[in-house]
C-alpha cells in the first residue's frame, strides 16, 4: 500500500547538554506540496530538519519516507535516498567553480569513461548547463563561487538539490538574501518541483511569502509542535500568536529606564573603507537604547564594527561626551569605554575551550592584578563569581569550559565580561541570536537594567519585534546608508520594512 504521505516524522525528540531542542515533534509532508515550518529562532525548526538529514542523531522517534522507515546516519545517505537540504549557511567551496560545487561528492558520475578515474570537464559543464537551463538560472557553470553574490550562490545550492533528483527538498531561509525578482524566480522553481511531485519543506520567517507559496503551515515553539494548518485557513496574526505563545507584551520586560538629554555619543559622517557603509550620522543619549534595523547586508554590523574599530574606517568622526575619540582598534575602544558583543558568538565572542572564568576576565585583566606584574587569582575568582551571581549564569563551576553552557548562558558570560570593564557605551550585535525564549527575556532585562544605570546601548537586530519591544529609538539602515529613524513606541514593522527598502 502506498503511503499517502511523502514523509512522516513521528514523535521526534533530541536533547543537547542543558537544552531539550526537540520534544515529541511530529510532522507530515504530502506529495507535491509545500509545507512551511515556522517558529522563532531556537524553536527547533533547523534541528528537526538536521535530524531528518542525518546531521544530528535523533534521541527518540521514527521517520517514514514514502511509507518506509528510514534513519539516515549521514547527509550523504539522505541525499542518495532523495532528501536534499539547502542550508541557511551555505557550505560551499568558495575557491572552486560552480560545477565543481554542484557535483561535489558525485565526481564519479562525471568520468569521461566509467572505468577510468579521469573526470570530464565537458560532461560536468553540460550536465550543469542542462539543469541551469531547465531552472532558468543564468549562471556560468565555470564561474568561481566567491565571485558571485550570495543570492546566486543560493541558486546554485538549489540547483544542486534539484540535481540529486530529490523527492524532498528542505529550504532553510532561502530568501533571506534574495531580491524580490529573485524570490519570484525561486517561487517559479518551487512550483516546477511541485508539479513533478516533489515535497518542499520551507523554513522562513517571512509571513507574506509563506502564505503565498505554501500549502500547509506547521508552527513550532520551544522545541515543541504547536499547530499544523492549511495555509489558506490561517492568518498572519494567528501565526504570530502561535509562534510566540503568549501576548506580545509579555515577551519583553517593561522599559524602566529614563533617557536623559545628555548626548554621550555623536557619530558624524561615518563611512567604511571595505564595506558599503556610507555617511552615517546619529546621536546617542545617556541611558538610551538605540536600535538598528535593516536587511542583511544593509551595513548594520559594519556600523558597529566601524564605531568599535574592528573594521577600517574611511571617513567620519566619533565624539564621546563632546570629545573626539578615534577608536582605531578594539583595544583603544575598550579603553575609551566601549564594549561590543559580536554577532557570531561562537566565531568571535567566546573562547570555546577556555573556562567560564577565563572567558569572563579576559577583557579586564588590567584591573585584576595583585601587583604591577602578577594577576591576582583571588580577584579573578571574585570577579567571576560576582558576574555569575549578578547575571544568574547557570554553570556547574567557574572552571567549566564555556562550550558546555547553553547559548543563553554563554551570551551572559560575554555580557559579564564587558560589564567588568565598566564601559558606558554598549554595542550589541544580534544579542539574542540563537538563544531560547526564556533566556532572551533575561538578556532584554539585562539591557534595560544597563540603560537604567545610565549606560547607553546600540543594539542591532534582525528581529523587528525585539527592536520595537526593547529600544527607545530605531535607526533603519538600507544599502549601507541611514534610511531613517523611528520612535520605537510609535512605529510598525511595515514602516521599518519600507525604510529598509529605501535604497535597495
Amino acid at each position, binding site marked *: 500500500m502506498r503511503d499517502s504521505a511523502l514523509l512522516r516524522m513521528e514523535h521526534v525528540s533530541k536533547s543537547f547538554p542543558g537544552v531539550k531542542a526537540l520534544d515529541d515533534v511530529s510532522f507530515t509532508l504530502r506529495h507535491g506540496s509545500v509545507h512551511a515550518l515556522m517558529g522563532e529562532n531556537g524553536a527547533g525548526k533547523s534541528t528537526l530538519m538536521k535530524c531528518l538529514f542525518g*546531521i*544530528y*542523531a535523533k534521541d527518540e522517534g521514527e521517520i517514514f519516507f514514502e511509507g518506509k522507515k528510514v534513519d539516515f546516519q549521514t547527509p550523504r545517505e539522505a541525499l542518495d535516498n532523495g532528501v536534499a537540504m539547502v542550508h541557511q549557511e551555505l557550505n560551499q567551496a568558495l575557491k572552486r567553480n560552480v560545477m565543481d560545487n554542484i557535483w561535489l561528492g558525485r565526481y564519479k558520475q562525471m568520468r569521461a569513461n566509467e572505468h577510468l578515474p579521469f573526470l570530464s570537464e565537458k560532461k560536468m559543464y553540460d550536465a550543469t548547463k542542462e539543469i541551469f537551463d531547465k531552472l532558468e538560472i543564468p549562471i556560468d557553470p565555470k564561474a568561481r563561487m566567491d565571485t558571485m553574490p550570495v543570492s546566486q550562490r543560493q541558486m546554485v545550492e538549489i540547483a544542486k538539490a534539484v540535481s540529486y533528483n530529490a523527492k524532498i527538498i528542505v529550504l532553510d531561509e532561502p530568501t533571506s538574501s534574495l531580491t524580490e525578482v529573485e524570490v519570484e524566480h525561486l517561487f517559479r522553481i518551487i512550483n516546477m518541483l511541485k508539479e513533478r511531485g516533489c515535497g518542499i519543506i520551507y523554513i522562513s520567517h517571512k509571513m507574506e511569502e509563506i502564505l503565498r507559496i505554501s500549502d500547509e503551515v506547521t508552527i513550532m515553539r520551544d522545541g515543541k509542535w504547536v499547530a499544523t494548518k492549511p495555509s489558506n485557513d490561517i492568518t498572519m496574526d494567528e501565526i504570530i500568536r502561535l509562534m510566540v505563545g503568549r501576548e506580545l507584551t509579555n515577551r519583553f520586560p517593561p522599559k524602566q529606564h529614563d533617557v536623559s538629554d545628555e548626548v554621550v555619543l555623536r557619530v558624524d559622517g561615518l563611512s567604511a573603507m571595505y564595506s558599503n557603509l556610507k555617511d552615517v550620522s546619529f546621536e546617542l543619549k545617556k541611558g538610551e537604547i538605540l536600535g538598528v534595523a535593516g536587511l542583511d547586508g544593509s551595513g548594520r554590523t559594519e556600523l558597529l564594527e566601524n564605531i*568599535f574599530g*574592528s573594521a577600517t574606517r574611511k571617513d567620519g568622526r566619533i565624539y564621546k561626551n563632546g570629545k573626539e575619540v578615534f577608536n582605531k*582598534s*578594539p*583595544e583603544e*575602544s*575598550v*579603553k575609551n569605554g566601549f564594549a*561590543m558583543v*559580536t554577532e557570531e558568538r561562537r*566565531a*568571535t*565572542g*567566546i*573562547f*570555546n*575551550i*577556555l573556562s567560564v572564568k*577565563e572567558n569572563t*576576565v*579576559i*577583557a579586564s*585583566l*588590567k584591573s585584576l*592584578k595583585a601587583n604591577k*606584574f*602578577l*594577576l591576582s*587569582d583571588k580577584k579573578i*575568582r571574585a570577579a567571576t563569581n560576582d558576574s555569575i551571581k549578578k547575571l544568574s549564569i547557570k554553570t*556547574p*563551576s567557574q*572552571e567549566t569550559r564555556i*562550550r558546555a553552557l547553553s547559548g543563553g548562558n554563554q551570551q551572559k558570560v560575554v555580557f559579564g*565580561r564587558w560589564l567588568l*570593564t565598566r564601559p558606558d557605551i554598549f554595542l550589541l550585535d544580534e544579542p539574542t541570536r540563537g538563544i531560547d525564549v526564556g533566556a532572551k527575556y533575561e538578556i532584554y532585562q539585562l539591557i534595560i537594567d544597563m540603560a537604567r544605570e545610565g549606560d547607553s546601548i546600540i543594539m542591532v537586530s534582525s528581529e523587528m519585534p525585539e527592536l520595537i519591544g526593547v529600544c527607545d529609538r530605531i535607526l533603519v539602515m538600507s544599502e549601507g546608508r541611514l534610511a531613517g529613524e523611528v520612535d520605537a513606541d510609535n512605529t510598525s514593522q511595515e514602516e521599518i520594512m519600507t525604510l529598509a527598502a529605501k535604497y535597495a
Partner: protein
Amino acid sequence: MPRKGRLATRIDEYNALSPRDKRRFIGDWFLDRAMIFIIILLVIYIQIQRPTFLQPASIINILTLTAARLPIALGVAGCIILAGTDLSAGRIVGLSAFVSSIFLQKSGIIGKFLENVGPQPVFLVLLLSVLIGALIGLLNGFCVAKFKVHPFIVTLSTQMITYGIYLTISNAKQISSLDPSYTTDFVTKPLFRVSTTAVNTYVALALIMAGIMWVVWNKTRFGKNMFAVGSNEEAARVSGVNVAFTIIAVFTLAGACYGYTGFIEAARLGASTGTLGLNYEADAIAACVIGGVSFVGGIGKISGVILGVFLMQLIINGMTFLGISGNTTYIIKGAVILIACIIDMRKYLTKK
C-alpha cells in the same frame, strides 16, 4: 579552603551525572592522564626486564637530559598554544651555541676562531646568546602577526636563514676547547652529587626557567592573553587584547629560550658543531604534543611540557637499556607521538 570547596563541587557534579555520563567521565579522566599511565607502565616494564634501570645514576641521567631539553620545549610550547609552531628553534640553538663558543674559547690555542679575543665575561655572552635568539624570534613573530603568514612558513624560512648565517660566519668549523669559566665552572659545574652522579648547574637553571615560565603563563596578563589568542584570535581582538603584540612577544620569548639553550648546549657538549641543534625543534614539538599542548591552540600546561620532555627522554633511555637499536627507537618515538596526538584530538573533537 577554596580548594576544598572546588573538590566538593566536583564531587557534587559527578554525583549529578547519569550512569552513562559517569562512565564517560571516568573514561575521560583516564584519557586526560594517559601519558602518566604510559610512563608508569613503561617504567615498570623496563624495570622488570632490566633490574638495574631504577638506580640513582640512570634516574639522574634521565633528569639531566630532560633539563637540557626543557627550555627549548618551553619556548616552542608558547608558539603551539597560539595554534602555530616554530621550526627555527633548532637552528637558533646552533647559531647561539656557535656565538657562545667563539667568545668563550680558551686563549692561546691553535686554530682559535677569534684569534685576538680572549674569553669574555660569561654573563655577557649568555645575554648575547639570548638576545640573538630573541631577535630571530622577534622577526618570526613580526611576520606572523603583521603579515599573517602561517608560522610554519615563517619559521621554515628563518630556519634556513639562521642556518645560512651560521654557515657563512663559521664555515661549519667546529669550535672546541672552551674556557673553564664557561663549562666546568658554570654550566656543567656539579651542584651536588646523588651517590656518585653529579647534578649540574644547568639542571637547576632549567628548573628556575620552568618556574618563571609557569608564572608568566598563569599569573600574568600576557599569559592569559596568549591562551585567549590561541583559543580564538578574533574574540581576543574584539575583547581589546593587543593580538599582534601578544604574538610577537610569544615568539620573541621563545627565541630567547632557544638562545639560552644554545649557550647551555655548547658548554654541555663541550663544542659547537654544524649539527648542534639539528632537529631539536622536532623533539621539542613532539614533547609538547605528548605533554598535552594541543595544536588546536589555547591549551597547554607547563607541567605537561615537563612531562612530555621527560617521557621522550625516558623512551630514549629505556630503549637503550632494553638494548633496542637507535634505528628502532625512531620508529617507537614516532609511534608514541602519533598516539599522543590521536588521544589529544579525541579530547577536543566536538561530538555531534
